[in-house]
């Protein structure tokens, strides 16, 4: 096993553990923080796959911008949301069974994920994927830049309209008309 393989497996394990915690943790802030770890691990995996530029973008946009957005949303939402979603009700055996499959204990999401991955693995195993092509990959940043402003210049401009729509949309939905709504609602 080479160093690269070990690095990949370690990063993949961190990514999956963090994602599992995202789905199962009780407290939403914890979920958001585990999400950051998962994003960083994905960035690391990009690095093992020689995608240096995406490594940087992943850190900046996902671990940076999107995380900031999510944390903002959690902070601005009601304080009740910071607590958990409550214990499964009931007592005795029924309760124990429910706990076992509850999303809190984390067996159910893990089972769904493993089941899904098992199906996909059986599909992938029956598929003759190509091996690694010979030769070192070219530095991807240069190639991405060329593609982005050559072949993909139209999608690039289209993405700018998507961002414009997101900006207009975010403003139009959250703009307060003279701050009236807020004052009325808050005690």
């Amino acid at each position: 096993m080479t160093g690269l393989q070990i690095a990949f497996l370690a990063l993949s394990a961190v990514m999956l553990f963090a994602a599992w915690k995202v789905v199962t943790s009780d407290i939403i802030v914890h979920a958001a923080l585990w999400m950051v770890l998962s994003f960083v691990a994905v960035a690391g995996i990009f690095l093992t796959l020689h995608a240096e530029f995406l490594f940087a973008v992943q850190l900046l946009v996902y671990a940076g911008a999107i995380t900031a957005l999510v944390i903002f949303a959690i902070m601005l939402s009601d304080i009740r949301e910071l607590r958990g979603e409550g214990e499964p009700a009931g007592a005795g055996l029924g309760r124990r069974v429910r706990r076992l499959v509850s999303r809190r204990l984390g067996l159910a999401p893990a089972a769904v994920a493993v089941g899904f991955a098992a199906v996909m693995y059986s599909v992938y195993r029956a598929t003759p994927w190509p091996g690694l092509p010979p030769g070192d990959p070219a530095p991807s940043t240069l190639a991405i830049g060329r593609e982005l402003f050559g072949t993909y210049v139209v999608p690039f401009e289209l993405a700018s309209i998507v961002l414009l729509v997101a900006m207009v949309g975010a403003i139009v939905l959250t703009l307060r008309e003279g701050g009236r709504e807020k004052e009325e609602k808050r005690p």
Partner: protein
Amino acid sequence: MIPLSWVLVSAALLFGLGLYGALARTNAVRILIAIELMLNAVNLNLVGFSRYLSPHDVTGQVFALFVITVAAAEAAVGLAIILMIVRQRDVSDVDRINLLKW
């Protein structure tokens, strides 16, 4: 070298976790986080394929780049929607938003 199937299985596991989170959770912010996990799984697939198809082909990476861009736009709009609701009603649970039935 890293076998391609490792990348694909990791991505499938991540996608499965995200899918479960998106379906089982009721809090809108949590569903959004779970969807982001699914998109990360897609990006892993794309970057993995891009590396293995040819050493010079970066189509998959460019695609992943656009997915990240759109994900950011989508997250911004989604959180604006959640904020709009929370501001007026102090809930962000989809379950508790039940004026209209599922």
